[in-house]
C-alpha cells in the first residue's frame, strides 16, 4: 500500500534533525551538510509516496544526503580546492552502503542542532529561519510562505545564517556545561517567537500554509523530551498548550477576535488544558520559578475558571507580582494592571498604568491604550474609554486587533 503524503511528510520532518546530526558528526561543514540533507528530503518527498517508504528510511536519507554532499564537495574541489573544509572520517566504500543502519538515533543531536541554529551570532529572524529548516525539516519555500516573504528572501536568510555560523567558528557540538542553560534560553525565545508569529486571529489556510503555532509546539515538545528536567522548557510548552487550547474560542463565526472574558469556554480543549496544567504544576514544584512558568501559571488560572466571573484574580495578581520580581517587563506591567483592577478596582489599575507613562517601550504602545480603554470602561468613563480604544486601534499594525479595538470603541 502506498503511504499517504502526509505520513511521509511527518516521517521526513522527524528524521530531518537526526540525519543532519549524523552528517555533521562525520563531516563538520554545517552549510554543506544542511544543503545535502534538504536535497535528500526533497528526493524522498518525491519518491516515497509513489514507491513506498524504504525499510530503513533513516539510513536511506543518510546515504542519499552523503552522496549529495560528496558530489558537492567534488564540484567545489575542482572549482577551487577547498576540500580542507571537510574532514571526511569515513572511507568512500562505507558511504555507498547504508551507514547508520541499526544504530539508535542519538537523542542529543537534535538539542545540539537547536543550539547551533539559535547561535548568538544570528539575529532572531535568521535563528527562526534556520531552526525551522534544519530542525523542523521545512523547505525555504514553506517558511517563506508562512512569514509572507518572497522565497528568495528566505533562501538568503538561511544561507546568510549558515555563513555567519561558519564565520563565528561555531561547531556541531554541545557548548560547555556552563553555557548550555543560557543557550537553551535562546532556543526557548526562538520557539516563543515562532509560536507568536503563528498566533493569528483568523482561521487561516491550514492546508496550504505551514501552521507556525503547531510547528512551535512540535519543536517545544522535542525540546521538552530532550530536557525533561528543565522547568523553563516545561513552562514554555505549558504556556503554548494553555494558549493553543483556547484557539477555537478565540475567534467568532465571522472570524473576529473574541476577548478572553467573552469566549465560549465550552469550546476550549480540556485535554490540552489538562496537559498544560499538569506540566506547569510539576515544573513549579521543581524549583525556583522562571518567567515562562509564571506566565503559564497565569494562563492556567484563566483556563481553569469555569466562567470569566469565577476567575481567581487575587491569584493572578500574586503571579504577576512574582513575574515582576523575577523578570521585570513593562508589557507585563500593562497586563498586571488588569489584575490590579479586578482585585483593587479600576482606578488602582489606572494608577499603575500612569506609572508607566514615562517608559518609552510601552507609553505609546497600542496595548497600553487598549488596557486604558478597558479600565476606563470599568471605571464608568465611556467617553474617555472610547477615545483610548480608538487610539489603540490606530496604533496596532495587526488587522484582527484593529477590527476588535474599533468594535470595542463603538460599544462604549
Amino acid at each position, binding site marked *: 500500500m502506498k503511504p499517504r503524503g502526509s505520513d511521509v511528510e511527518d516521517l521526513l520532518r522527524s528524521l530531518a534533525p537526526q540525519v543532519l546530526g549524523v552528517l555533521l558528526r562525520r563531516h563538520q561543514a554545517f552549510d554543506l551538510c544542511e544543503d545535502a540533507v534538504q536535497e535528500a528530503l526533497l528526493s524522498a518527498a518525491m519518491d516515497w509516496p509513489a514507491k513506498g517508504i524504504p525499510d530503513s528510511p533513516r539510513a536511506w536519507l543518510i546515504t542519499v544526503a552523503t552522496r549529495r554532499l560528496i558530489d558537492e564537495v567534488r564540484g567545489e574541489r575542482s572549482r577551487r580546492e577547498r576540500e580542507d573544509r571537510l574532514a571526511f572520517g569515513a572511507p568512500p566504500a562505507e558511504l555507498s552502503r547504508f551507514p547508520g543502519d541499526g544504530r539508535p538515533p542519538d537523542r542529543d543531536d537534535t538539542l545540539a542542532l537547536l543550539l547551533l541554529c539559535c547561535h548568538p551570532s544570528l539575529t*532572531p529572524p535568521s535563528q527562526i*529561519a534556520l531552526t525551522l529548516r534544519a530542525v523542523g525539516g521545512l523547505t525555504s519555500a514553506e517558511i517563506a510562505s508562512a512569514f509572507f516573504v518572497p522565497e528568495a*528572501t528566505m533562501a538568503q*536568510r538561511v544561507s546568510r545564517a549558515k555563513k555567519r555560523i561558519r564565520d563565528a567558528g561555531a561547531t556541531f557540538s554541545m557548548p560547555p556545561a556552563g553555557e548550555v542553560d543560557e543557550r537553551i534560553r535562546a532556543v526557548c525565545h526562538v520557539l516563543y517567537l515562532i509560536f507568536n508569529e503563528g498566533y493569528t*486571529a483568523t482561521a487561516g489556510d491550514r492546508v496550504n500554509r505551514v501552521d507556525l503555532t503547531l510547528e512551535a509546539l512540535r519543536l517545544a515538545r522535542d525540546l521538552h523530551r530532550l530536557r525533561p528536567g528543565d522547568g523553563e522548557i516545561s513552562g514554555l510548552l505549558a504556556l503554548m498548550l494553555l*494558549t493553543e487550547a483556547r484557539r477555537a474560542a478565540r475567534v467568532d463565526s465571522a472570524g473576529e477576535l473574541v476577548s478572553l472574558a467573552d469566549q465560549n469556554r465550552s469550546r476550549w480543549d480540556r485535554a490540552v488544558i489538562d496537559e498544560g496544567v499538569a506540566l506547569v504544576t510539576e515544573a513549579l514544584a521543581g524549583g525556583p520559578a522562571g518567567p515562562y512558568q509564571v506566565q503559564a501559571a497565569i494562563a492556567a488560572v484563566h483556563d481553569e475558571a469555569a466562567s470569566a466571573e469565577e476567575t481567581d484574580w487575587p491569584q493572578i495578581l500574586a503571579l504577576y507580582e512574582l513575574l515582576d520580581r523575577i523578570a521585570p517587563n513593562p508589557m507585563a506591567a500593562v497586563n498586571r494592571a488588569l489584575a490590579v483592577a479586578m482585585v483593587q478596582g479600576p482606578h488602582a489599575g489606572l494608577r499603575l498604568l500612569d506609572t508607566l507613562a514615562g517608559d518609552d517601550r510601552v507609553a505609546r504602545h497600542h496595548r497600553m491604550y487598549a488596557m486604558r480603554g478597558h479600565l476606563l470602561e470599568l471605571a464608568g468613563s465611556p467617553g474617555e474609554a472610547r477615545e483610548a480604544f480608538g487610539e489603540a486601534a490606530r496604533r496596532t499594525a*495587526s488587522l484582527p486587533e484593529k477590527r476588535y479595538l474599533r468594535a470595542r470603541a463603538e460599544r462604549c
Partner: protein
Amino acid sequence: MKYIAIIYGNKEMWQSFPPDVAAKAISEVDAFNRRHAESGELLGAYGLGDELTARTVRVRNGVPAVTDGPYVEAKEFVSSFFLLDVDSERRALDIAAEYPFAAHNAVEVWPILHESGEIA
C-alpha cells in the same frame, strides 16, 4: 515586522545633484540594496517613473476616467520605495538611516498591516 520606506523628491531636487554626486549616490544605493537583500531583511526596492508618467484612475457611475499625473497635489512625489522585514521598529529606522538619500532629504518609514497577533 514589515515596513515600507518611502523616498520623496522632485525634478529640481534630483537635478540639483552634480553628475559625480548622483553617480556616487546610485552606486551607494546599489550597495545598500545588495547588503540588505543578502541579510534577508530587504524584500524589494523599486524606483518609480517621473510624475509626468503617472496616471490616476477614477470610476464614476461605472465609467473609469483616467487623468494625467498623481492624485495628490504636492511639491514632492514618491520617487522610490523599499520593503523591509525586520525584527523591530528600531532596526527598520537604523536601515532607513543608512539609505544614502536620508542624508540629503528624508526617508519615511511606515509599518505594514498584518494578520498575525500576539499572545495577549
